[in-house]
């Protein structure tokens, strides 16, 4: 009997947050969730068969070179600039994803300021315009639940790119990039308001959309939608997040 741990081979054996079904050198998958059941009653009384379905939710994983188009050039220039300024590229940019014609750089949070400065200042990169920061919450992707997503535009070169920083739920701190892109002021406030990601170094991190004394962070997945049952003549229908739905 082999001593090596058995690698999972089916969807139901994968756990969320686990990388890779290594199948002969293919790039690893980014599993964010494994769901059982797809519609209707759960727990008992399910005669539809939907309850036994297991879905593995996989986002596109790191892409292998060549990336295509101008992506290779930009990544190479960025690597060069970062190495020159003393930031090791592999530590700063943990992975590069090219999907649906878009370039995404997954950046480690300690180096987000350096990466932003390099992207903005280098003349061959020149990503002057930032379209802001927003958040996303992947509750089952343990260790990387909260993502902050930055979208940058280079007006000079007509390039667009996405930076993604992932932090864990209990330690949701990311250095604030307001010093590099002042437009992130309100965007970071909104991301804090809705997700609870704290941006260290932000001049005034306060709630912006919700009332100042609102508890909780509404756009997280564990925050309920908060509706009330809808009253019809002779019936009540539960609010949207509590109805039976396809998952």
């Amino acid at each position, binding site marked *: 009997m082999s001593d090596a741990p058995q690698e999972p081979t089916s969807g139901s054996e994968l756990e969320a947050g686990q990388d890779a079904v290594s199948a002969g050198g293919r790039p690893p998958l980014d599993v*964010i*969730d494994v769901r059982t059941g797809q519609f209707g009653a759960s727990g008992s009384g399910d005669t539809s068969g939907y309850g036994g379905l297991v*879905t593995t*939710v*996989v*986002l*596109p994983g790191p892409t292998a070179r060549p990336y295509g188009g101008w992506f290779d050039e930009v990544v190479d220039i960025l690597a060069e600039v970062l190495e020159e300024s003393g930031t090791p590229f592999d530590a700063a940019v943990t992975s590069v994803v090219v*999907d*649906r*014609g*878009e370039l*995404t750089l997954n950046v480690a949070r300690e180096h987000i300021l350096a990466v932003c400065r390099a992207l903005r200042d280098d003349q061959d990169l020149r990503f*002057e*315009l*930032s*379209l*802001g920061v*927003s*958040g*996303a*919450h992947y509750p089952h992707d343990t260790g990387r639940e909260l993502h902050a*997503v930055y*979208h940058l535009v280079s*007006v000079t070169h*007509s390039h*667009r790119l*996405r930076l993604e920083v992932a932090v864990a739920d209990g330690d949701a701190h990311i250095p604030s990039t307001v010093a590099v*892109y*002042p*437009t992130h*002021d*309100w*965007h970071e406030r*909104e991301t804090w308001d809705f997700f609870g990601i704290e941006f260290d170094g932000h001049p005034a991190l306060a*709630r*912006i*959309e*919700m*009332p100042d004394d609102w508890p909780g962070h*509404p*756009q997280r997945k564990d925050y309920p*939608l*908060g509706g009330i049952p809808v009253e019809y003549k002779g019936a009540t229908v539960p609010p*949207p*997040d509590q109805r039976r*739905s*396809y*998952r």
Partner: protein
Amino acid sequence: MTSSTPGAPRSTGHIVDEDATGIPSFEAAGGDWSEIAEEAARLGEERIVVNMGPQHPSTHGVLRLMLEIDGETVTEARAGIGYLHTGIEKNMEFRTWTQGVTFCTRMDYVAPISSEAAYCLAVEKLLGITDDVPERATVIRVLMLELNRIASHLVCLASGGNELGATTIMTTGFTAREEVLKIFELITGLRMNHAYIRPGGVAQDIPPGALDTIRESLVTIRHYMRQLEDLMLANPILQGRMKGVGYLNLSGCMALGMTGPVLRSAGLPYDVRKSAPYCGYETYDFEIPVADTGDAWGRMVVRIEEIYQSMHLVEQTLDRLQASGPGPVMVADKKIAWPAQLAIGSDGMGNSLDHIREIMGTSMEALIHHFKLVTEGFRVPAGQVFQSVEAPRGELGVHLVSDGGTKPYRAHFRDPSFNNLQAVSVMCEGGLLADVVVAVASLDPVLGGVDR
């Protein structure tokens, strides 16, 4: 019942709590302003914080401006938003991809077609069917987008004029806008918040005779535009109030991430339709109007010029629609396309009698297919995209994440007004109190998009 009766409604009192100790605060009850001013002068208070509260005739919606003023000069200006926060982004996570259109259309309610287009283009990018959307549907999308741009700029000019006290500009602008709304009603069935652009195409084809109606309306709109130009461009009062007001130069705009007419008034011809074209914009002939003054006057001139450019684009789309003849307006893939080819019936509501006859009378499978498509919706492969369009206010971006299911996992809208409103402080501080109104009007914020 008087206010002294217990349990009777009383007016909300002025809140004085431990946060306000030591700070003199006054509540004006009407007719007592001279007493308040005397009291403030006696206390030696020269700087007053005025709350231009969420309910105000000229804040373009529920925007709260906290202005610290010293005489007539604004020393500090802060914007408070969130009074229209609707939780649309979170609500979209519980609705199918097609139902998401009805939600996102209500964000920027003055330019709903832009939000719909951005969202649907993003969904199509995720599905990978961007090239499969029929040509006719794409041309109709451009037609609707440019008509919406005309209507939105008319609202900006009209309400801007109204806030400066020129009510005729408002009535003229809104009457011109009624022409556009009539076209929208003819094509989509609704004047606002249409939910017309759907993932895969548009909801229904334009009715016969619409092309001629639109051409006639363009003539009427040009007539009203001439009236507006007469009222606005040579008007010495408007020039005096708008020139040099709300100034933001190019480096300020780039730092604050401004896009749209504000950026173009500072001299940079950046337009998403030219730099990252969508919906076939690279095949149309139009220009990007630019001003170099960077003030409210420059923005107004840019918007007027953009209305003319949009009318030129509308004429090009009308020619294309005329030349191409009838065709499908929904993607051919039956697993994604909205099942019924809708048409507005005699009762003004969309239905398609042939389709209903088929699914109710002829084919059970068609009925099941229709049912599943409408209730469950289609599934979109997992991944994330970012799609930008040039909304009338600036660059509207949609960040869409799919987990492979029937509902968006995360939909975030980068609304241009949310971004542009950050410039209020920079524009207003150091200026006069009356210039705050002009500066905010020149930014053209729509609070539905700001607060989402």
